[in-house]
């Protein structure tokens, strides 16, 4: 019950945060020089067409008026229409979101699958050759910019080995999946490095804890100690870090989606900002804010699963 109430409270807390985000991004976009009519017209501008487009898009109204119109539509669930795509923003974001979520999901899976065993191994084999190799790998990962790693992977796997598509999204689910491997790997690269170091340190700390010695003295097998004691307790700080990295992946997707030509929300956002496609920028920001808030709630929930001493809404009682 308590946890449910806690969840409800967290959801209600999202509302003022969202409102502030909407106001801020609305104003920011309006204070950028130029307007969507100018952006649409590009290099050759006939002043008559410019005025006609401004009028048609309601850009001649005052900013408070524009906000009132936007906000009342938003309350009715209408995020507006994209001037670049001539499509409802909700529909546009819906389709683009699938790509970005798949990308973040695959990157997360790569991150977990690679960093968990390597980080653990490095921690257990502290200061042995395996540890040194893994640490060098992590260092390289940390210091390589994503756009460079992306291009490198493209050249090796796409152009030279021709194993994976160079870019694009494909037309079917198996094709989508293949298309996501390289960008997913690129996006995961720096997270993997961070997580390896984090897990390694946690494992080292936990191994020295009293309860691990206690477990050994009870005669538990190495496997039981590793999974039940060491790994489990080492993972708690890692979960926080991972959730932060997932949020980071959303911003990373802006760069990755452009390199790999993926039609995701990051690429959409960049295009919408340069095109002064106000409704789309506002829509994307709302969605990003919601994702960040939701990931935070999920993280809290995972804590309580990993550590029973942490109870959701416990401080309330």
């Amino acid at each position, binding site marked *: 019950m308590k946890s449910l109430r806690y969840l409800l409270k967290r959801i209600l807390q999202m509302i003022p945060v969202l409102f502030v985000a909407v106001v801020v991004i609305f104003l920011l976009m309006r204070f*950028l020089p*130029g307007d969507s009519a100018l952006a649409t017209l590009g290099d*050759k501008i006939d*002043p008559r067409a410019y005025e006609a487009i401004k009028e048609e898009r309601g850009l001649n109204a005052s900013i408070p008026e524009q906000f009132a119109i936007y906000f009342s539509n938003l309350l009715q669930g209408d995020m507006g229409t994209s001037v670049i795509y*001539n499509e409802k923003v909700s529909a546009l974001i819906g389709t683009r979101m699938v790509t970005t979520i798949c990308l973040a999901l695959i990157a997360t899976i790569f991150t977990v*699958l690679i960093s968990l065993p390597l980080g653990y191994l490095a921690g257990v084999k502290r200061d042995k050759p395996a540890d040194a190799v893994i640490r060098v790998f992590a260092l390289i990962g940390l210091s390589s910019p994503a756009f460079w790693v992306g291009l490198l992977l493209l050249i090796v796997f796409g152009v030279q080995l021709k194993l994976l598509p160079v870019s694009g999204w494909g037309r079917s689910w198996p094709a989508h999946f293949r298309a996501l491997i390289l960008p997913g790997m690129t996006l995961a690269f720096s997270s993997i490095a961070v997580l390896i170091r984090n897990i390694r340190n946690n494992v080292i700390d936990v191994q020295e804890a009293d309860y691990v010695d206690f477990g050994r003295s009870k005669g538990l097998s190495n496997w039981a100690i590793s999974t039940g004691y060491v790994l489990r307790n080492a993972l708690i700080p890692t979960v926080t870090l991972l959730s932060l990295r997932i949020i980071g992946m959303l911003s990373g997707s802006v760069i990755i989606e452009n390199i790999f*030509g993926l039609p995701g929300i990051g690429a959409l956002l960049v295009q919408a900002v340069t095109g002064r496609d106000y409704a789309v920028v506002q829509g994307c920001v709302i969605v990003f804010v919601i994702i960040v808030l939701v990931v935070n709630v999920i993280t809290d929930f995972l804590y309580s699963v990993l550590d029973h001493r942490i109870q959701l809404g416990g401080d309330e009682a």
Partner: protein
Amino acid sequence: MGSFNLNRRSFLKGAGLMGATSALAALAGCGGSDDGGTDASAGGDTGSEASSYAKTIVIGRANDSDNLDPVTCIGNINIFIFNLILDGLLKTSDDGETIEPNLAEDMPEISDDGLTYTFKVKSGLKFSDGSDVTAEDWKWTFERAMTTEDSNWISTVENFDHVECPDDTTVIVTLKTPAASALACLCVFTLGVQSKAYFDKVGADEYKNAIIGTGPYMVKEWKKGEYLTLTKNPNYREEGLPLTEEIEFKVVADDNSRKIQLQSGDIDIATDVPFSTMKELESDSEVAPHPDPSTFTYWVSLNTQNEYLSNPDVREALFLATDPQEIVDMTTYGYGTTIGTVFSTTSEYCDKDLEPITPDVDKAKELLAGAGYPDGFEIKMLLKGGNDFYASIATVLQSQWSKIGVNLVQDTQEATAYSSARKALELDTIISGWSDDIQDPSEFMQFIFDYDVTHGYYSGLQQPDDMVALNDQANAEQDVEKRKELYKQIQQGFADQKIFIPLLSVPYQNAIRKDITGFVQTPLGNYRFEKLAMPASE
């Protein structure tokens, strides 16, 4: 712990399961369907006819189209593909040098007063949906192009007074004043005949997503931001054409990715290829640069309202400090050509007698000293962020002008902020570019002479009466030779005003697979793909 039922065991089990499924899925993905690969092999599968051509040719572009309605659309990215879908009465030849009949049987009959153009239209024309092209469609197409308020192309059809279509095969266009540019204006993409019935059915908004015309291709599928697929028009009037069944325009935003996709065969043609990449591809075994001549010219506009640049001697000094050849060499890897006038080099009205600038630093220094600036001064150049080409030109100019003590500061702004500053003439100097939409200088001249449109192309100079008179004469003059003479005087006038430093013209930056034939991009930029073909891969 209460209401959460997940216990430790089920959580770990769940995590394990997740790992296993993802690994399986990854294997399935790699193992592989051929779905993501090229469509070239599909040519063999069409069955009915054993075509030796690939079924689909994929063209990589940096951006996607955003509006397929020729009247309300903006930007070359939309305009370039209209010749694939729409046909007008007339068209420019593939080399852009002449104007020839397209849907008209012949060139029009022109009345003695030069005001009435009567066209005999080919009979039996059908739209791609199978419906007949009627008099109503012609009249509607013209009138919509002439009266739609938010059309950016209205200036090209401004001189048309009205259009009559007494029957399905006659179109009579009446001009407001006699004009030599009328034939060129009749080629403009907004006048490609379109189906009124279809427009009425779908409405103006949906019309931006798909149009119906009589051209070799029609819209098949458009996934915005990803790809636009055109397929053969089954009712195309020429038997056996087009050769390739489908053309796919695929968006590959990143320059490097586009090059890599071309080399790996994911795309067959790349557009918007940087000059450095074109140079690099010269030695590639599979693909080659394809620099088609364009109407693009670039120059530096000097704002005469700036305190330094208001002095003609200062402007002349900047002219003499500029070395266009060095700019061509350093920014286009030899693909560009120096120019002596801002007119498109492919235009018959371009005055080829005007020579590109020969730099003379000593004289430039003298002029500056004479104007009272022996130590030079500092001015800004407004630049569009993300445009590497403009940035590289500015960098070369910076070093050239520094030789006479002028410190050029790059004022780089994000694209729309740049447009906004430019529109308000908040600039000292700017790199300007032009490309024609019709094979006639009248459109370009309107942009310079109508001060409200571009502040005299960002020179801040309202053209004097004698120049305006010359331009009016050139617009009305019917005789090509006399018109050439008038435009020659106008170009000489610009040269004397020292407001535009002519730099270079450039070709279209395409790269294509070597086995592709029939790739045509006219100087106006229109793609003509009736004979575009690529051998089917075995």
